[in-house]
């Protein structure tokens, strides 16, 4: 793949150069993108391929609780589940991370010690992002100080829709700096960006500003993750790597509840960005109820029948 002539390091030199670059990206045809996603969704993943996909999807889950009613007890329960998703089958892989609000990071960190499961924290006035930048930075610094391995920030969608791309660029760069060694996931909230052109521009904006991951949604806005939105983001990370050599991950979050859905996402990853993205390091599912469906499907492959909801743990 060829690179653009633009020196990507200079892209954000000014508001106008950044705008020129983002608007110079080739457009996304809505009908075509949705057709492509729908066609990939007809792939038939059976037997050994299904088993591989179920385990891979399990290992990519960011098991999430982001509720006002969250308590240390709830978070500890979720962490136990993340370490060992299926108590009846130790071969079920652990999830990638537990995702919580900043004030519960320390609890999660303690509960996950030694497990290899990472702690992700949402920050930057999640989910709306509507506060002063200093507050957002303080939010991030607090999460990191509590031990967050990964920070899921939200972009300022208002600024994006107003065309103030440089403000978002600067904010992402500042958050990235505040993250220190923590991985930064940039939530685009695609349900508020609405068009695929916007999704593509926001993806590039987040990558240019230093995001390690681009993430579809907070889960608090409908629609959350969709297959075509994720397709467009995967095309963006693929093109970004071809242009810069840097690989950026993708997280599809919100609304993915069944194994069938998750496998469709994996097919899209496989046939769009490619197999280099088929690891928990580069692709994640932000989900809560998905994990139990993956476990039930896994049990079904082993035993030939569905065990039902009482044979997986509910938290």
């Amino acid at each position, binding site marked *: 793949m060829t690179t653009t002539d633009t020196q990507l390091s200079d892209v954000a030199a000014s508001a106008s150069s950044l705008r020129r670059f983002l608007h110079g990206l080739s457009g*996304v045809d809505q009908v075509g993108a949705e057709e*492509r996603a729908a066609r990939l969704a007809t792939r038939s993943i059976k037997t050994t391929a299904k088993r591989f996909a179920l385990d*891979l999807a399990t290992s990519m889950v960011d098991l999430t609780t982001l509720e006002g009613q969250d308590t240390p007890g709830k978070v500890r329960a979720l962490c136990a589940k993340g370490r060992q998703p299926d108590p009846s089958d130790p071969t079920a892989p652990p999830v990638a991370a537990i995702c919580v609000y900043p004030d519960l990071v320390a609890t999660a960190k303690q509960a996950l010690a030694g497990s290899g499961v990472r702690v992700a924290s949402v920050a930057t006035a999640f989910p709306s992002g509507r506060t002063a930048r200093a507050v957002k930075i303080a939010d991030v610094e607090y999460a990191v100080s509590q031990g967050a391995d990964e920070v899921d920030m939200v972009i300022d969608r208002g600024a994006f829709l107003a065309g103030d791309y440089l403000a978002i660029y600067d904010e992402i760069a500042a958050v990235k700096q505040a993250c220190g060694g923590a991985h930064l996931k940039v939530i685009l909230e695609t349900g508020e960006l609405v068009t695929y052109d916007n999704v593509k521009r926001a993806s590039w904006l987040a990558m240019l500003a230093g995001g390690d991951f681009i993430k579809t949604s907070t889960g608090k806005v409908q629609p959350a993750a969709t297959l075509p939105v994720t397709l467009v983001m995967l095309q963006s990370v693929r093109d970004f790597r071809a242009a810069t050599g840097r690989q950026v991950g993708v997280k599809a979050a919100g609304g993915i509840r069944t194994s069938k859905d998750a496998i469709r996402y994996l097919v899209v990853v496989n046939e769009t960005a490619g197999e280099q993205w088929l690891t928990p390091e580069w692709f994640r599912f932000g989900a809560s109820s998905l994990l139990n469906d993956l476990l039930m499907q896994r049990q079904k492959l082993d035993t030939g029948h569905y065990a039902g909801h009482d044979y997986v743990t509910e938290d």
Partner: protein
Amino acid sequence: MAVFEYAPAPESRSVVHVDSHYGLFIGGEFVESEDGSPFKTVNPATEEVLAEVTAAGPRDVDRAVRAAREAYDKVWGPMPGHDRAKYLYRIARILQERARELAVLESLDNGKPIRESRDVDVPLAAAWFFSYAGWADKLEFAGLGPDPRPLGVAGQVIPWNFPLLMLAWKIAPALACGNTVVLKPAETTPLTALAFADICRQAELPAGVVNIVTGAGDVGAALVSHGGVNKVAFTGSTEVGRQIAESIAGTRKRLTLELGGKAANVVFEDAPLDQAVEGIVNGIFFNQGHVCCAGSRLLVQESVYDEVLGRLKERMTTLRVGDPLDKNTDIGAINNPAQLAKIRELSEVGAAEGAERWSAPCELPEHGYWFAPTLFTGVTQAHRIAREEIFGPVLSVLTFRTPAEAVEKANNTPYGLSAGVWTDKGSRILWMAERLRAGVVWANTFNKFDPASPFGGYKESGYGREGGRQGLEAYLAH
């Protein structure tokens, strides 16, 4: 080995029953031939013999035409439109009910991937019958005069690339307008037409309204030249179309021809590139490129040539070539050895003429007829692969600098069936569509078909329109 290896996901063959021998469908029943001979139809993906079929003789053709005439005079011609509609709706519903069986049968006999026969061929065939069923009692409102009348007996000859769908394109409008038909499916793909004969019986369609005679080109020639035929409809090669036009010149027969193509798929620099690449792939590799309206000439604006070509090659490496019955197969088998030989020959000509050949890396099965998805770069208007219809998974890539040059190159062909335009600029789409000499111009998509949309060509791509209100005209006197 790939990280994510898709396990085989074959569609079951057990949903379809193939008889070991088929007669001809004449006068509402399967009959043995009077003067024909048996031949075999094979699965192009394995070379396995599927069934023995009957090549009709001249007396058989005559019998079929007389059966159609009798049904026209006594039953179908006088029948009110709303009653004809009931039969067409019934056929459409049976096509849907038996969709899985028909899809498997089509993939077995034709070699096309089950994904396409399941998602495109069979649903569209049913849609064609539904659509024309709706016209049957509304013909006086079709803009073709106050009292349009059927023509009589239609002799219809169809190709092997979309056997059941082309049958639907031919039979649905003919029957809706009150004609009866004798249809000859292609020699290499008779099985879904014979299954359709069974569907006619299941729908209790009056005997003789639909007759199916199988066989090769001589059977088609006997049919179109038969004195009892009032209307000839042919889809196939320009060469045969020309012979048919000559053979019926001077008779009172009406004729529609849907022939070859060498469509230009024009990609402008402001196109949505990922979707354009998808459209290029769909344009030329859909149905192994066995598509008369295939986008076989890619015209790319020079400023995005490298980028488009890079993306296209990358996309082509993900195409899954193999077992047509596997639900994950994108590209199936070439339908027959003669076609494979032609594709190979023209590909060799392309390389010899100096174009650069590139094929997607893929493992082709040992048995059967296969050709890897291939593109040629450095092609110019002077190359044979830019002018002749290859009718296979082979794309010729050319470049242009300005919209005017794109139009000039796109139109510089003896054909004129279809074209594609890829751009984010709406005004440019309209500007191009006005100037492209092609029956269909797709904008930011390709190979889209709908029963409400007319389809047909300019120049050597034939004449007459199929589909939509316009498609009625071919089967009505007015």
